[in-house]
């Protein structure tokens, strides 16, 4: 007996022994029990750490003793088991702490913690099992020891839960047993082997193996909650929160899915399973489960039930990853084992906290819970966002690998499944977050506490309830952010996959290099600023943080020159940060507008509510925006992109009136849709390029990837028909935020295109053509719709769509004619720069001009301030707009029509601007002397002058300076304006001006359809009561059968035993003489 042979056993025993000891502890001996609990959990963690270190040093840990001849009980540490063991040990530790806090003062704690220990012990056994038999043993044991936990409360609901749980798991166990016995009898000891054991065996009928596989998966599928075997899981919610957490995140569900992984990889072998055609079926079931459970989750109002269905759905990702049967998907599936664990346990902790502290069980009661329990809800939010698969949270990593893996084996439909699932996840999680954070609390919490009352203790709840979710949520986040580090679950999983496939498929870590630390500082500065928000002193003066955080970046953007890349292999999948030439221009634009908007906010937000919230989202969005400019790797880019998009949600909803809520809803819907489409595109990109951050090259795949990328970033850019969120969201935000949204954030989509589309490399002319069409139709349609807006900001928003249409068309040109790209690129950059600054200025005008105009003395100034940016947008001579347009025109010159269209677009733009000025100026008439402060003035001035001057400072613009005064440069740009004025005057005379198309145009139609679907779903979910009737019918049959069976054996009825005896004799005799 050496430590190599005992350690696995010790790990299993450590939990069990502490369980046994705790069972014997007297109910009121709290201290003893708590210390035993903590000690047991710590001991287990310690042992696991020792084992990890040992494995790292190349030791082999294996406990083996013989149960039956040719049948051993094996506990062994391989990469896969270590992953699961570490997860279980760590989560057990946190759950123990949580449970101690949760169960304070409740009954039967010794029993609870005793079985809790057993449960973990069984899980450890499942994890460490070295062959299928050992696995089976611990798997069944797990069923048994979880049962008292499920029905711990002892009320009818938990009784029912316990019963349902047992019925399912027992039947599953029986089926599994049949499969294992069968397999064992034809294939021997079934020790897990990294590449499967069955393939090498001769003379085994493949059909037998197929049937056995079905049996095994059916058995394991019960715990893994694959449909239609998932029924027990939502019912098991009756258990106490720590149990649910454990069931869902670590123990039961994971055991099932871990078993599937073991069977597919280590018993059948992934290649062999695929040859047998088994993986496809599994993948389909997993996919169906993902979608179905998500749909069910949406219909739940009970928080824990919704989480339960979410588990059903999420856990199937693991099965899906297994079934996709490629090395990359393997990583995705297995790493989700850990990631889902971390996220889901957090959510259940939080759900428990809500129920415990405020009595909240229903989602409809959640309103305003975020303010009452910020830590809890923050943790919950992180976990939920991770579940949806938003980067950089852990869930994204899993999904990413699943997606790439699916593409690797040409299983494109899985991308669709992942996309739909993400959407559905968003549909059922985001309303929770929305309600908790952005809705006002009801008059009292379900437990009767008033929302105004302060929490009793120092924290929002007992610290033992707060700490575990906070830590697990952080871990879930860190697992994603530092996915590339060697401590991350991903790294381990890559090892597992490498062994499974016998290859060294591990992403090659780059050399870490920080060549331009300033880039990192640019990104980190806003983040650091958010952390200072925790300080009370800062909170009171938070607004000043906004310009302060942006200012250094502004300086940096001017001073920094492109110079090498920062690479950090630990961060994301190996982060690369660098600044190219065009990035620098975007950075200047971004930092300028952010600084100005920040400065403006100081004045604008001074008297408004919820400053801190505003600052928080402002800074986060800023961080995201700067980050995405630098990030060259896919993960980094999409992370910052998402950060920016989601944080902007907070800005859009900030005013919290109905319009803002509606706008925010539309906004976030489209953000998510965009993310999902992007996900598809980026995974394709990641796969097709082999290494990250190079453009796609192979043809059909490149086509699809490009299409998805175009669409995904197109959402942000206002590409029709994805533009619908824009006219709602931009006007709804506070003025500085609107300026940011329209000025810089929209450009993020453009940056995405420039970075990831194969512009200049490959001609994808169909998409290019499409983009040109869409772009120009956007330009004109938006002008038309914008003309019918009544709100100045909406007009501006449509103008943004219109302007972006031109950019889109330009990119389309680049895509169609790669040879033109070198000329088009600078033009696009210039145009974007121009539009960003000018549009930001215009948005500020919406607030600034009325304020300015309210003072008679400043009316002229106001007119100038308004007119100059308007002219710039229209592109009057010498304005930045003119320069940008001439640059574009120059690059298009070889293409017929386009310059003309460009010119015509100016008519539309002019019309919009006339409408804008019209509305705005009318509004100034009613404004009373409103205060103007130095901040706003400074900010406006900065932007105003930048819009006039700054573009001339750019080296790229030199080419397009007006070098000679001619008809084409001076008069031609004026023609559209003149035309537009005429048109506008006509319109004002007609009834057309009274028409209004609601902002967001076609989204209204979509919402209508959505409402109908929702109604239908609601009806559908109400049909549950009908099935009760059926159950009752079944129950009656059961009672009848029962009565019949009992009757036969009763004293007074049933056959006479003597006759039975004679019958028996007869049968035996006849049979005896059969020979």
């Amino acid at each position, binding site marked *: 007996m050496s430590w190599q042979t005992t350690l696995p056993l010790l790990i299993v025993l450590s939990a069990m022994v502490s369980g046994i000891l705790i069972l014997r502890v007297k109910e009121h001996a709290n201290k003893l029990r708590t210390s035993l609990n903590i000690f047991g959990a710590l001991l287990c963690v310690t042992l696991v750490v020792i084992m990890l270190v040992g494995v790292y040093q190349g030791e082999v840990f294996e406990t083996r003793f013989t149960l039956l001849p040719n049948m051993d009980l094996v506990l062994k540490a391989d990469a896969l088991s270590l992953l699961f063991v570490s997860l279980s040990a760590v989560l057990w530790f946190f759950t123990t702490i949580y449970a101690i806090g949760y169960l304070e003062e409740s009954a039967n704690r010794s029993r609870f913690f005793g079985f809790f220990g057993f449960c973990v012990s069984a899980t450890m056994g499942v994890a460490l099992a070295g062959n299928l038999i050992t696995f089976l043993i611990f798997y069944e044991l797990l069923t048994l020891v979880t049962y008292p936990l499920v029905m711990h409360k002892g009320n009818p609901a938990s009784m029912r839960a316990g019963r349902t749980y047992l019925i399912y798991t027992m039947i599953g166990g029986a089926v599994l047993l049949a499969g294992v016995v069968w397999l064992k009898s034809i294939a021997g000891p079934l020790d897990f082997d990294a590449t499967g054991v069955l393939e090498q065996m001769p003379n085994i009928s493949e059909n037998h193996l197929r049937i056995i596989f079905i049996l095994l998966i059916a058995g394991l599928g019960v715990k893994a909650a694959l449909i239609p075997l998932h029924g027990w899981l939502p019912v098991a919610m009756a258990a106490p929160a720590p149990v649910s957490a454990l069931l869902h995140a670590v123990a039961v569900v994971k055991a099932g899915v871990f078993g599937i992984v073991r069977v597919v990889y280590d018993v059948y072998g992934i290649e062999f399973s695929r040859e047998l055609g088994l993986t496809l079926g599994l993948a389909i079931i997993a996919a169906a489960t993902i979608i179905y459970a998500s749909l069910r989750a949406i219909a739940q109002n009970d928080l824990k039930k919704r989480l339960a269905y979410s588990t059903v759905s999420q856990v199937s990702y693991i099965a899906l990853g297994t079934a996709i049967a490629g090395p990359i998907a393997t990583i995705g599936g297995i790493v989700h084992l850990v990631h889902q664990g971390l996220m889901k346990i957090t959510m259940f902790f939080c759900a428990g906290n809500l129920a415990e502290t405020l009595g909240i069980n229903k989602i409809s009661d959640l309103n305003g819970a975020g303010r009452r329990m910020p830590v809890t809800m923050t943790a919950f939010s992180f976990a939920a966002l991770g579940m949806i698969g938003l980067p950089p949270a852990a869930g994204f990593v899993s999904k990413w690998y699943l997606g790439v893996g699916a593409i690797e084996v040409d299983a494109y439909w899985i991308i669709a499944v992942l996309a739909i699932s993400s959407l559905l996840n968003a549909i059922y999680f985001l309303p929770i977050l929305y309600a908790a954070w952005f809705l006002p609390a009801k008059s009292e919490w379900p437990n009767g506490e008033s929302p105004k009352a302060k929490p009793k203790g120092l924290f929002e709840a007992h610290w033992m309830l707060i700490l575990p979710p906070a830590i697990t949520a952080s871990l879930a986040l860190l697992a994603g952010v530092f996915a590339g580090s060697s401590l991350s679950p991903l790294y381990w999983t890559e090892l597992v996959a490498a062994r499974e496939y016998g290859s060294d498929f591990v992403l090659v870590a780059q050399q870490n290099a920080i060549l331009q630390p300033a880039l990192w500082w640019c990104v980190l500065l806003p983040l650091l600023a958010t952390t200072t928000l925790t300080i009370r002193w800062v909170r009171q003066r938070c607004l000043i943080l906004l310009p302060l955080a942006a200012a250094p970046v502004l300086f940096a953007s001017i001073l920094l020159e492109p110079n090498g890349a920062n690479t950090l292999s630990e961060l994301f999948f190996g982060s690369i940060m660098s600044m190219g030439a065009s990035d620098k221009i975007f950075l200047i634009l971004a930092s300028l507008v952010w600084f100005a908007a920040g400065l403006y906010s100081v004045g604008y937000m001074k008297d408004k509510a919820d400053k801190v919230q505003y600052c928080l989202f402002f800074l986060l969005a800023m961080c995201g925006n700067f980050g995405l400019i630098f990030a060259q790797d896919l993960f980094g880019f999409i992370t910052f992109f998402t950060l920016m998009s989601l944080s902007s949600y907070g800005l859009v909803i900030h005013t919290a009136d109905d319009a803002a809520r509606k706008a925010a809803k539309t906004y976030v819907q489209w953000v998510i849709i965009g993310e999902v489409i992007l996900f598809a595109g980026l995974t394709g990109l990641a796969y097709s390029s082999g290494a990250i951050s190079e453009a796609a090259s192979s043809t059909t795949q490149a086509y699809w990837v490009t299409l998805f990328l175009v669409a995904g970033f197109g959402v942000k850019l206002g590409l029709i028909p994805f533009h619908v969120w824009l006219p709602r969201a931009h006007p709804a935000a506070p003025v500085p935020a609107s300026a940011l949204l329209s000025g810089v954030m929209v450009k993020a989509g453009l940056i995405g295109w420039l970075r990831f589309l194969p512009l200049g490399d490959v001609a994808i002319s169909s998409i290019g053509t499409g983009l040109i069409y869409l772009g120009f139709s956007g330009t004109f349609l938006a002008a038309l719709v914008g003309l019918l807006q009544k709100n100045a900001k909406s007009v501006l928003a449509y103008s943004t769509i219109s302007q972006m249409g031109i950019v889109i068309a330009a990119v389309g040109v680049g895509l169609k004619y790669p040879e033109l790209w070198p000329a088009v690129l600078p033009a696009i950059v210039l145009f974007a720069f121009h539009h960003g600054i000018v549009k930001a200025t215009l948005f500020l005008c919406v607030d600034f001009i009325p304020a300015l105009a309210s003072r008679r003395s400043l009316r002229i100034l106001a007119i100038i301030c308004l007119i100059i940016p308007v002219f710039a947008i229209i592109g009057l001579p010498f304005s930045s707009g003119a320069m940008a347009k001439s640059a574009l025109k120059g690059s298009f010159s070889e293409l017929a029509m386009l310059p003309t269209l460009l010119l015509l677009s100016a008519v539309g733009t002019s019309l919009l601007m006339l409408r804008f000025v019209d509305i705005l100026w009318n509004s100034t008439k009613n404004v009373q002397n409103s205060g103007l402060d130095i901040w706003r003035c400074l900010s406006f001035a900065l932007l105003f002058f930048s819009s006039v001057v700054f573009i001339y400072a750019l080296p790229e613009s030199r080419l397009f300076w007006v070098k000679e005064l001619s008809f084409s440069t001076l008069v031609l740009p004026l023609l559209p304006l003149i035309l537009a004025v005429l048109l506008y005057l006509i319109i004002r005379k007609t009834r057309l001006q009274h028409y209004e198309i609601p902002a967001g145009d076609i989204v209204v139609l979509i919402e209508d359809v959505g409402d109908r679907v929702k109604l239908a779903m609601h009806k559908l979910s109400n049909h549950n009561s009908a099935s009760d009737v059926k159950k009752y019918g079944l129950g009656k049959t059961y009672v009848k059968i029962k009565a019949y069976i009992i009757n036969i054996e009763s004293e007074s009825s049933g056959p*006479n035993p*003597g*006759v039975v*005896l*004679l019958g028996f004799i007869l049968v035996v005799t006849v049979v005896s003489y059969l020979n």
Partner: protein
Amino acid sequence: MMLSQLTPEIMYSASGIALFGIGLLGLIIVPHIFRKILAINVMGVGIFMLLVSSAKRANIDADPVPHAMVLTGIVVAVAGTALALFLVKKINDLAPSEKSQ
């Protein structure tokens, strides 16, 4: 069946078996408990008869082992019968209400 096969031994044995069968039939179809006990005794007697008849041989002394078996069997049968009767008695004692019925 040839008549020569019907040796005395077979005749006796067959009647033993017949007794066994009668006892069995009685045990099954007769409802009263005393008769059931008796029926069991009849069955036992049938077996003893079979044993004894098979022990007897024409030219040599009877085989003593079946005899010993029968003696042991009788004692055991007595014990069983006594126990059964005693139980019946006790059951009756414990249910005075049924006496009145």
